[in-house]
């Protein structure tokens, strides 16, 4: 029972991160009908930039308390990623809005590779340890352990997701975003500046990605130039699981995927009589993806893709 609860907790932590990243994918897909392959790399950039800022500030010995360093690093990472997301859309996707569907997909892959390479050149190939700014005090109950860092991850994610829903449903920007996602042509005729809304979508998604990057690297204590690829793939799976284009769907999908992966990795050994071990963890996400797309491609909560897509 303790193992079960432990896996549930692990799953929730993992799932919160997936949800944050999935939101970025789902927002872009909802408006443009495009999988932003480079999104996972933005997460990676967030993690590594934050790491560099932390190392810089701690190394400069300015006497800033550690949690504040963390916040500063987060803010800077968000800023960098927002700029990055904006630039990617402008340079690689906007010129191809009228092109056949294959074209932006291929450019996206190119951007992804480019970002990975640049990250590799700047930060090297090694796995970087992320210093713990908050001592990870474990709390135990019912035989399962959760650290306060992990609790923070869940809380921060929940807060941000709530903030996003508030933005989308109660602000003018959010209304414009929803209108554009519904039908860009008509929204344009109603006076919405489509280009600006699309840029805003990318920028917001990238901000979420930055937060996710910081959180996930804090959780595992590692940051690496290749960390975005698999994470991105899984987060996209989560978005599809919940229903692409559907914001609550992305959140639900993220949490569910985290749980499936955690429970799967924990129990697969028992279920297959030792044939498959927990290193097959990544396979679960892919299997979920294939299953969902084959049997229920619109996802759990239904997809919402613009008419133009």
């Amino acid at each position, binding site marked *: 029972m303790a193992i079960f609860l432990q896996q549930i907790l692990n799953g929730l932590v993992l799932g919160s991160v997936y949800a944050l990243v999935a939101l970025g994918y789902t927002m872009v*897909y909802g408006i443009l009908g495009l999988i932003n392959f480079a999104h996972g790399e933005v997460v990676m950039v967030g993690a590594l930039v934050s790491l560099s800022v932390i190392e810089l500030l701690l190394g400069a010995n300015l006497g800033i308390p550690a949690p504040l360093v963390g916040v500063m690093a987060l803010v800077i990472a968000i800023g960098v990623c927002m700029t990055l997301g904006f630039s990617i859309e402008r340079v690689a996707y906007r010129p191809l809005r009228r092109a056949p*569907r294959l074209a932006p*997909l291929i450019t996206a892959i190119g951007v992804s590779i480019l970002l990975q390479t640049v990250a590799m050149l700047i930060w090297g190939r090694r796995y970087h340890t992320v210093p713990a700014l908050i001592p990870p005090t474990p709390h135990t109950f019912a035989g399962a352990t959760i650290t306060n860092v992990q609790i923070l991850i869940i809380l921060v994610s929940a807060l941000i997701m709530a903030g996003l829903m508030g933005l989308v449903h109660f602000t003018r920007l959010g209304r414009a975003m929803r209108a554009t996602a519904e039908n860009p042509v008509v929204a344009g005729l109603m006076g919405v500046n489509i280009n600006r809304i699309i840029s805003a979508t990318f920028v917001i998604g990238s901000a979420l990605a930055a937060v996710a990057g910081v959180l996930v690297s804090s959780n595992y204590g590692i940051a690496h130039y290749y960390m975005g690829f698999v994470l991105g793939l899984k987060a996209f799976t989560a978005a599809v699981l919940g229903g692409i284009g559907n914001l609550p769907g992305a959140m639900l999908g993220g949490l569910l995927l985290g749980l499936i992966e955690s429970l799967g990795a924990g129990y697969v050994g028992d279920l297959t009589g030792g044939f498959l071990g927990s*290193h097959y963890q990544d*396979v679960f996400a892919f299997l979920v993806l294939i299953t969902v797309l084959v049997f229920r491609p619109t996802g759990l909560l239904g997809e919402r893709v613009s008419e133009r897509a």
Partner: protein
Amino acid sequence: MRAGARAMLHRLRQDPRARWAGLALIVVALTVLPFALEASVGRTWVRIIDLALLYTMLALGLNIVVGFAGLLDLGYIAFYAVGAYAYALLASPHFGVHLPWWLLLPMGAVLAAFFGVVLGAPTLRLRGDYLAIVTLGFGEIIRIFLNNLNAPINITNGPQGVNLIDPITIEGMSFAKTNTLLGISFPGTHLHYYLFVLLAMLVMFVCIRLQDSRIGRAWVAIREDEIAAQAMGINTRNIKLLAFAMGATFGGVAGGLFSSLQGFVSPESFVVWESITVLCMVVLGGMGHVAGVVLGALMLATLPELLRHTAAPLQQQLLGKVILDPESLRMLLFGLALILVMLLRPAGLWPSPTRRRELTSARAPGTL
């Protein structure tokens, strides 16, 4: 090209004697190439050409899927892996089985085609982007399984891979050694070269024939407008599956050849990056154009090697130190190539006239 030169070339192309002369020239050049390379830049370059020819076969196979049928497969390297491992496991000390190459290559092809059908059947009806991600996932799943199926039963030998794979042997001549034929000594690399050139040409031939046929037209129709294609009676599912299976077949054959060439395979050779490399070759060379794809493959398979030999010393000379190691340079160039080609010349470096039309004239919505 100036009008006068173009007219002259056109006339030459029509003249049958000129065509035979041109063909003879090409045959002679191809036959002599390995010796010329070895004499000038060394045997390693023949080996590089051997690998480039394998990549050519892969690119041609992927071209059927992406270029002809318009299906973005990001996990194509999985078929290469299937063919390679099928060969490796059945022609090495691993299981103690030593089947001959002429049996294993077709077997690998059939096995790869089988995987192609199994993957394609449920997924080919998905939208383009979804298909891309699913195939990506499938490619990774294959690699993960290859990497981990060494316990509790050792099927693939995990990350260590399979080595001591039997080389191809024809009439007692082993392709792993130097053999003397008609007084000329042919090293293994050269023998592999001739076999690979012949097979690559066969693959090219099949692709060209397919393109200009009822099936080829159906693929273009599906690419243009799948709903209209269905409304004209085309069984789009089966036709797409055919493209997938054919692409997989070529991948499987190339995989088997890879195993026999290297003598060793491991899951490391079948990472996502390889799938993307092959995609780069197709996109850069000219999606859907057989000649363009071959050009793209040969370029991108040899360029990194060129870089490896020149980039580091060049930077050392100019800048005093090496900023971009060849590996990073390669990744950088590939990433940029994909972006720039799509933005500036989406039909590729050497497009077929049809493709150039399709990809450069953007369609405004609502009109044909």
